C-alpha cells in the first residue's frame, strides 16, 4: 500500500481498501524503521493520528474532502506549522513554535491531508546536500536499495559500506528521502536555486518548482524573497499536479501571488508530441557533466524526436554567468533576511546581557552555522555603499539578461526546454564534504538556479538508473505560468521511460542491526 502513488492510495481510501488511520499508522511505523535516514526533524505522531481519525470519520459519513483526504504528507522544516516546532535545521530556531500555518500547509490540511512531520534540510535551506543542518545530514534511501547494493557488491574495494552512504542532495533532502522511502505520499520542499529539483533527482522522484507567483510563500521562512517558491515532491508527475491544484492560487497574505483565476490542474494524457518543440540549450553541455547523464539527456532528446516532436538546439548565451549572479543576489538577500534573527522576539537567545547589540551579536554567533554566517557576511559586503553598484545592482542587471535569454527562446517557438537536473548521480557523503558549501552549491545548482532567476516553472523527472544503480533525473523548463503544459509533457516523458521503483524491502527486513549502530552515531531525533 505504501508503495502506491498518491492517486492510487487516494482511490484505495475512497474504496475502503484501507482506512486513513491504518494508512497513517503504516507510515508512522515506516518512519520509525527508517529513522536512520534522518529525513524527519520532528515526527508529529499525535497530530497525525488525530488528523487521520477526523479523516476516517469523514470517509465513514461519505463526506470526504477530496483526493488528499487522509493522505500522509510531510513538510520541510522551513514552513511554519501552527503548534509544531519549526527549526529550519538551525540552532537559531530550535524550540520555535509558530503561532500560525504557512498558507500552503493550511491548504493541504484544509483538504484533509495528514501531516506526518517536518523534514530535514540544510540550515535555513542554504546548501545542496542536506548535509549542513543542525540535526545532522540526511541519508539517501538509494544507499540501501537493492539496485545500488548489488552493483556495489561487484566492486572489489573493501570500504565499509555504512560509512559510504549517499547524500540526498538538497536542500529539501529530508522531503525527498521521506517520499522516496515511502514514509509519505507527497512532501513540500522549497526551491530558491534548485533545492526541490536537486534532491528529487538524487532520490529518484519527481521534484516540481512552480512559476514564481503561482503558489503562496506566506509562512515559508524566507531565504531569497525574489526567488523562493514552495516546491512539490512526489513519486509521479500526476501526484505533483494534484498537489499543485490544491496549492496554486492567489493568497491575500502574499502580494506576489498572481490574481489570475485559478484553473484545476488535471493533466491530460498526451498521446501526440508531434506539435511540440523541445529546446536543448547548448550552454548546458558543460565539461563537468558526467558522460552517463549526458547520454541519458541525449537519449531523451532522441525519444522526443523519434515520436515526432521538433527538437532543436537553442542558446541561452548568459548561462555561464548565471551561477555567479545567483551567488551575489542570494547572499545579499540572505544578509537582509537574516537580520530578523536577534534573539529578542523568538528563537535562540544568548545569556549575554551587557547591551542589546552585544546580545544580538552573541545570539547570532551561537545560532547560525558557518555557512549561514559566511553568506550573511558576503551579502553585507556586496551591499556596502561602494560595492552596491558593482555587485548587487550589477547582478540584478545580469539577472535581466538571463531572464531575457529564456524569453527569447520561448518567443522563438520553443515550448519546453530539456536539460539535466544535476551533473551526476548522488555521491557518497565523504566525497561530498571534501568541498565547502559554496563551491558545492555553485556546482550543484548549475542547471537549476537560472530558472529561479527567471521565475519559470521547472520539474525534475527521474529517467533511469546509472551504472552504479542510482537515479538520474532530467529537468523540463516551461514558460512562466504554463505549469500545466510543462507537467503534461513531463507526464508523457515519465510514461515513456518507466523509471524503476526503488527496492527497499531488504533494507526493512535484514539491515536493522546495521541501523542500530548508525542510530547511535547520528544525531538523535526529536519525537
Amino acid at each position, binding site marked *: 500500500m505504501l508503495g502506491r502513488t498518491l492517486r492510487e492510495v487516494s482511490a484505495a481510501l475512497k474504496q475502503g481498501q484501507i482506512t486513513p488511520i491504518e494508512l497513517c499508522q503504516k507510515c508512522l511505523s515506516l518512519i520509525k524503521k527508517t529513522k536512520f535516514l534522518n529525513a524527519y526533524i520532528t515526527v508529529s505522531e499525535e497530530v497525525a493520528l488525530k488528523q487521520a481519525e477526523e479523516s476516517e470519520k469523514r470517509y465513514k459519513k461519505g463526506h470526504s474532502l477530496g483526493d488528499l483526504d487522509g493522505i500522509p504528507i510531510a513538510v520541510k522544516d*522551513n514552513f511554519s506549522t501552527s503548534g509544531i516546532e*519549526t527549526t529550519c535545521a538551525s540552532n537559531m*530556531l530550535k524550540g520555535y513554535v*509558530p*503561532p500560525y500555518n504557512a498558507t500552503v500547509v493550511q491548504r493541504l490540511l484544509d483538504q484533509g491531508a495528514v501531516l506526518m512531520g517536518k523534514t530535514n534540510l540544510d540550515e535555513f535551506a542554504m546548501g545542496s546536500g542536506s548535509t549542513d543542518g543542525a540535526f545532522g545530514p540526511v541519508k539517501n534511501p538509494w544507499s540501501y536499495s537493492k539496485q545500488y547494493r548489488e552493483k556495489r557488491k561487484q566492486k572489489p574495494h573493501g570500504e565499509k559500506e555504512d560509512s559510504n552512504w549517499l547524500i540526498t542532495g538538497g536542500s529539501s533532502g529530508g522531503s525527498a528521502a521521506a517520499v522516496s522511502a515511502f514514509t509519505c505520499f507527497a512532501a513540500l520542499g522549497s526551491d530558491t536555486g534548485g533545492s526541490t529539483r536537486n534532491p528529487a533527482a538524487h532520490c529518484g522522484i519527481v521534484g516540481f518548482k512552480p512559476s*514564481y*507567483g503561482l503558489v503562496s510563500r*506566506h*509562512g515559508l*521562512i*524566507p531565504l531569497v*524573497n*525574489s526567488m523562493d517558491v514552495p516546491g512539490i515532491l512526489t513519486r509521479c508527475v500526476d501526484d505533483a499536479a494534484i498537489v499543485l491544484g490544491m496549492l496554486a492560487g492567489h493568497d491575500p*497574505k502574499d*502580494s*506576489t*501571488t*498572481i490574481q489570475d483565476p485559478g484553473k484545476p490542474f488535471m493533466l491530460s494524457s498526451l498521446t501526440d508530441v508531434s506539435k511540440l518543440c523541445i529546446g536543448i540549450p547548448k550552454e548546458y553541455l558543460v565539461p563537468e557533466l558526467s558522460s552517463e547523464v549526458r547520454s541519458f539527456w541525449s537519449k531523451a532528446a532522441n525519444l522526443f524526436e523519434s515520436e515526432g516532436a521538433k527538437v532543436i538546439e537553442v542558446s541561452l548565451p548568459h548561462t555561464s*554567468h548565471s551561477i*555567479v549572479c545567483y*551567488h551575489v543576489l542570494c547572499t545579499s538577500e540572505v544578509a*537582509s*533576511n537574516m537580520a*530578523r534573527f536577534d534573539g*529578542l*522576539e*523568538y*528563537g535562540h*537567545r544568548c545569556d*549575554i546581557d*551587557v*547591551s*542589546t*547589540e*552585544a*546580545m*544580538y*551579536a552573541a545570539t*547570532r*554567533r551561537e545560532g547560525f552555522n558557518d555557512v549561514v*554566517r*559566511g553568506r550573511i*557576511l*558576503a551579502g*553585507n*559586503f556586496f*551591499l*556596502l*555603499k*561602494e*560595492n552596491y553598484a*558593482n*555587485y548587487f545592482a*550589477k*547582478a540584478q*542587471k545580469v539577472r*535581466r*539578461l538571463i531572464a531575457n535569454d529564456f524569453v527569447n527562446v520561448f518567443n522563438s517557438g520553443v515550448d519546453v526546454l530539456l536539460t539535466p537536473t544535476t551533473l551526476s548521480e548522488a555521491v557518497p557523503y565523504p566525497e561530498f564534504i571534501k568541498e565547502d558549501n*559554496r563551491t558545492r552549491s555553485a556546482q550543484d545548482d548549475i542547471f537549476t538556479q537560472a530558472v529561479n532567476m527567471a*521565475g519559470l516553472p521547472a520539474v525534475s523527472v527521474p529517467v533511469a538508473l546509472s551504472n552504479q544503480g542510482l537515479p538520474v533525473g532530467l529537468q523540463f523548463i516551461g514558460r512562466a505560468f504554463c505549469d500545466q503544459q510543462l507537467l503534461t509533457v513531463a507526464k508523457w516523458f515519465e510514461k515513456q521511460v518507466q523509471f524503476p521503483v526503488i527496492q527497499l524491502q531488504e533494507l526493512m527486513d535484514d539491515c536493522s542491526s546495521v541501523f542500530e549502530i548508525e542510530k547511535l552515531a547520528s544525531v538523535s531525533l526529536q519525537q
Partner: protein
Amino acid sequence: MWARAVWLGRRSWMGWRRGFTSKGDPQVKTGAGRAGGEAAQETERVPPMTPSPASSAQGSGRVTAEVIEHLERLALVDFGSQEAVARLEKAIAFADRLRAVDTDGVEPMESVLEDRCLYLRSDNVVEGNCVEELLQNAHRVVEEYFVAPPGNISLSKQDEQKPFSHTD
C-alpha cells in the same frame, strides 16, 4: 490602471528607501513572533545599501581589517576565524567574474513580476489579538513587553580581540 499607478508609486518608494542608509535597517524587522510572515506585507524587498568606511579592497580579492570590522558590526556576526575571512575573499573573487558581463543600458531586475500589477489588500484589520501567542516565543518578557538589555551602548571595540586580517 489604478493598480498600475500603485505599482509605479511603490517602485519610487523603494528607490527612496534604497538611498536611505540607516544602520537601523527597519525593513528587515518582522512582526513579533512571525519568522515567516514577511510575504504578507512586502514583495521582493531590495536589500538596503549599507554605509561603509572609505577603504575597501574592491577588486584586489583581499579584504582589509577595517572592512572586516565594519562588516562584523553591520552584520552583527563575527568572522571568528581566518578561514571565514578566506571564505569571504573567495566569495568576492567568485562574484568578481560578473565584471566580464556587458550590462550597458540594462536595467536592474528586481522582480520577475515587474510587468504585473501589484495586489494591495484593503486596509482592514482581519486578525490580531494574539499578544500571548506571540510573546510565548520570546525568552524574556515583562507583561506585554519584550525585554532587551540596555540599548544605548554600541558594540564595544573589542580591543583584546583583534579582527582577523592578513598580516601584511
